[in-house]
């Protein structure tokens, strides 16, 4: 973290560095040690330079970023040997002094533009606020400046957009508006906290381009992210944070090519894009969340798995159509003539951006909603067109994993109760009323099966008495997988199973799914908006756009030689390590 790793172009710029941080410590509650969450980090950012601070949630990266604006939060304290914004020391600034500086000498871009913008005010007013507070521009001049800003962040028709409210904009447009607000006063330093996490890949790529453009104009940028691949194209330098410390820092290319610290190596390895099927993403380390047992060897790479296409088709969707009525009465086809087959032991990836009909397709395949046309066959038997009784019998063969694992568990039940009822299956309550001895034997065999499932997903038996609410995101998803496997299904429908997880936890869950697929000869439908993930897990890939499959083929072909223009655009936008 010395000046020598700075970009030569940036060094030329005159004046003091936009940001110098030396031995910054941040904590909550009393000053007496224990509550400290950032343990003395140091870095500086030059004009026109982009520094990415990457780390898992809880590593202290967001707290660090917010401290740079005096926004660490209620009950927080901060000390530093040096904390200088554009040459001015701000270590002991009062709240009033911070307020004068925010927006003017340092701007902030937040993750969720939907909640960061006032839903009742037009975005023009929202963006004009900082101009009104910090400049003496008249109303007309402010209006012109706002339109300039919206134009600068690439929002089409800015003179119309200023009158829209945040609800009328798409996710990418909202993020652009937020960036426009942050750069309104042309602050020399911009801090962006996970600015693209909630966005689709193509939109994410556009926003990253915009950031690159902003740094080219001489603004210093601190980019916070949990995803190394996302920042690798924008950042000149990377600082990896873990447990409140910067464990590694250096030029982006050098850190990616030769990561020195185990934490960095873990993050680099967890990026799924361009990693062939079967490559382990998670690097086991000292105390892994998942103990390594003899049945689960820890070798980093597993042998290439032969894909045999002559195997039987286990799932077949034909001509699925499902529409919804819009509020204005017009019909909108959420799923429009979708057909695919799933071969035993393989993974079909379904990829597309939000609103493309992926989740509706999953719901149709699971017979949670009835298609208007078309049908789904499971193991050669009719599924969606079957009688309720027949379908219930077949459901044991089809498991499901959801994005929101927590929401998919009955909040009253403990993990043990959830798994036992899944093991007992639909007839559990009826059969449990047998004689005491039969019930006892059943109880024991159920408990044995629960233990087996827990071991299979790498969870300790201690989670049995806990409720899902008390578990971490990765543990919850493991419980979700264990429940899906309880009925020994042959097909697993995974709807965005890793989308709400950190990259390194995502890596562990993807590895687990891969192992289970090999062990149990599972067939997977894997739905995700993340092309990198889909590329990593899939044998075949279906690309969805506006309810239709626009391209369907082998993963290698779809990603290596995309035919449809939309696929090409998607593939180009995948975050890869630079």
């Amino acid at each position, binding site marked *: 973290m010395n000046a020598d790793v700075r970009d030569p172009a940036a060094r030329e710029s005159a004046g003091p560095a936009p940001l110098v941080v030396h031995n910054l410590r941040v904590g909550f509650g009393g000053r007496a040690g224990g509550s400290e969450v950032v343990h003395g980090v140091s870095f500086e950012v030059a004009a026109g330079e982009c520094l990415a601070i990457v*780390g*898992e*949630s*809880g*590593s202290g990266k967001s707290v660090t970023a917010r401290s740079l604006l005096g926004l660490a939060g209620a009950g927080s304290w901060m000390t530093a040997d040096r904390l200088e914004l554009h040459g001015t020391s701000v270590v002991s600034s009062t709240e009033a002094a911070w307020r004068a500086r925010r927006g003017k000498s340092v701007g902030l871009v937040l993750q969720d533009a939907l909640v960061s913008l006032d839903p009742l005010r037009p975005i023009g007013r929202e963006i004009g606020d900082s101009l009104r507070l910090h400049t003496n521009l008249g109303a007309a001049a402010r209006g012109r400046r706002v339109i300039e800003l919206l134009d600068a962040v690439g929002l089409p028709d800015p003179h119309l957009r200023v009158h829209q409210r945040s609800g009328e904009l798409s996710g990418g447009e909202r993020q652009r508006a937020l960036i426009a607000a942050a750069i309104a006063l042309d602050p020399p330093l911009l801090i962006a906290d996970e600015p693209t996490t909630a966005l689709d890949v193509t939109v994410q790529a556009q926003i990253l381009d915009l950031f690159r453009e902003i740094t080219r104009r001489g603004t210093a940028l601190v980019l916070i992210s*949990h995803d190394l691949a996302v920042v690798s194209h924008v950042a000149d330098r990377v600082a990896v944070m*873990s*447990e409140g*410390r*910067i*464990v590694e820092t250096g030029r982006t290319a050098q850190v990616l090519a030769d990561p020195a*610290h*185990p*934490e960095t190596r873990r993050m680099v390895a967890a990026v799924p894009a361009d990693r062939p099927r079967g490559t382990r993403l998670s690097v086991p*380390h*000292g*105390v892994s*969340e998942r103990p390594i047992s003899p049945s689960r060897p820890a070798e980093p790479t597993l042998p290439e798995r032969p894909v045999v296409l002559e195997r039987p088709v286990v799932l077949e969707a034909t001509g699925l159509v499902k529409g919804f009525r819009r509020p204005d009465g017009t019909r909108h086809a959420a799923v429009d003539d979708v057909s695919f087959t799933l071969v035993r032991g393989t993974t079909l990836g379904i990829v597309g951006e939000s609103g493309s009909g992926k989740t509706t397709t999953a719901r149709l395949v*699971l017979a*949670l909603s009835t298609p208007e046309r078309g049908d789904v066959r499971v193991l050669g038997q009719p599924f969606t067109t079957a009688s309720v009784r027949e379908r*219930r*019998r077949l*459901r*044991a063969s*089809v*498991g*499901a994993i*959801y994005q*929101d694992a927590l*929401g*998919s*568990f*009955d*909040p*009253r039940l403990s993990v043990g109760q959830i798994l036992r*009822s*899944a093991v007992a*299956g*639909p007839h559990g*309550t009826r059969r449990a009323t047998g004689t005491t001895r039969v019930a006892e034997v059943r109880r024991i065999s159920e408990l044995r099966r629960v233990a087996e499932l827990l071991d299979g997903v790498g969870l300790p038996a201690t989670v049995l008495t*806990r*409720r899902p*609410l*008390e*578990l*971490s*995101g*990765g*543990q919850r998803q493991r419980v979700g997988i264990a*429940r899906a496997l*309880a*009925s020994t299904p042959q097909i697993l429908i995974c709807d965005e199973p890793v989308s709400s997880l*950190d990259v*390194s*936890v995502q890596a562990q869950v993807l590895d687990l799914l891969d192992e289970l697929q090999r062990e149990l000869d599972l067939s997977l439908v894997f739905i995700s908006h993340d092309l990198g993930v889909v590329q990593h897990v899939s044998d075949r890939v279906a690309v969805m756009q506006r309810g239709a499959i626009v391209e369907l083929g082998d993963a290698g072909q779809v990603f290596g030689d995309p035919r449809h223009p939309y696929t090409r655009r998607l593939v180009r936008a995948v975050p890869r390590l630079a």
Partner: protein
Amino acid sequence: MSGDIRLPAADAAPTPLHDRARRFTAPEVVAGAAALFFVLAAVVPQWVAPGNPLGINPLSAFQPPSFAHGFGTDESGRDIYTRVVHGTGSSLLIGAAATAIGLGLGIVLGTLAGMFGPVVDFTVNRVLEVLFAFPGLLLALLFILVFGPGVITATIAVGLSTAPGYARIIRAQLIAVRRSAYVEAATVQGLGRTQILLRHILPNTLAPLFVLATLGVGQAIVWAATLSYLGLGAEPPTAEWGAMLSAGRTYITSAWWMSFFPGLFIVLIAVTATVLGRSLDRRLRHA
């Protein structure tokens, strides 16, 4: 910059919440003690106050609170303390019965609206809206107007006037639970409609109602006392708080204790129910 890496902080489980939720706060302890007293007074009033609540003694009428008569005496020389204690049972009973009626009716209406399709939902909702148009107490008064005053009609009247509120809450809760991801997950597991209803929907819909019921008992007691005070519920000389309050009204300038102590108990029982209800709510939420 030491090299030791421990468990990834990223996936650390949130700290268990129930440690904080399980500790009793001072108001909860006081409310618990008060509830114990009220239950004792309701079940075995002769232990708490050995005298006769209806025993007339004209010689000691209108006595202010003293060592002999802690809460003083009324116009017929009856001991107010004894009467207040002996009135607890009927007050609690009226409160509980009214809440049970309101809740029962609410469950029926709410389940109809939430479970049996748009036509039933529409109809029930319009009925509820008509009921909502009248303030609760006015609805109770209307009912008494039709069926005549008395303890039983007052109880039913109070129950009836609280029913629309419960029905609305149950309907909303039912719809939310029915659309929840865990009900879908149960469907995917192959559970039938009845099983899902019994295992997931009903328990998750009804659990929050215990809290509401506890809060509701306090309200129902106040309303029942109001009706008695208006002379539409229990009638003198029954030892009932509302009726005692009403009897004391005539002498409020000379014998304040006649209305003060029954009123105090109404307030105390309502506060107790509210504190316990909130504490229950907090515990269920964090459990």
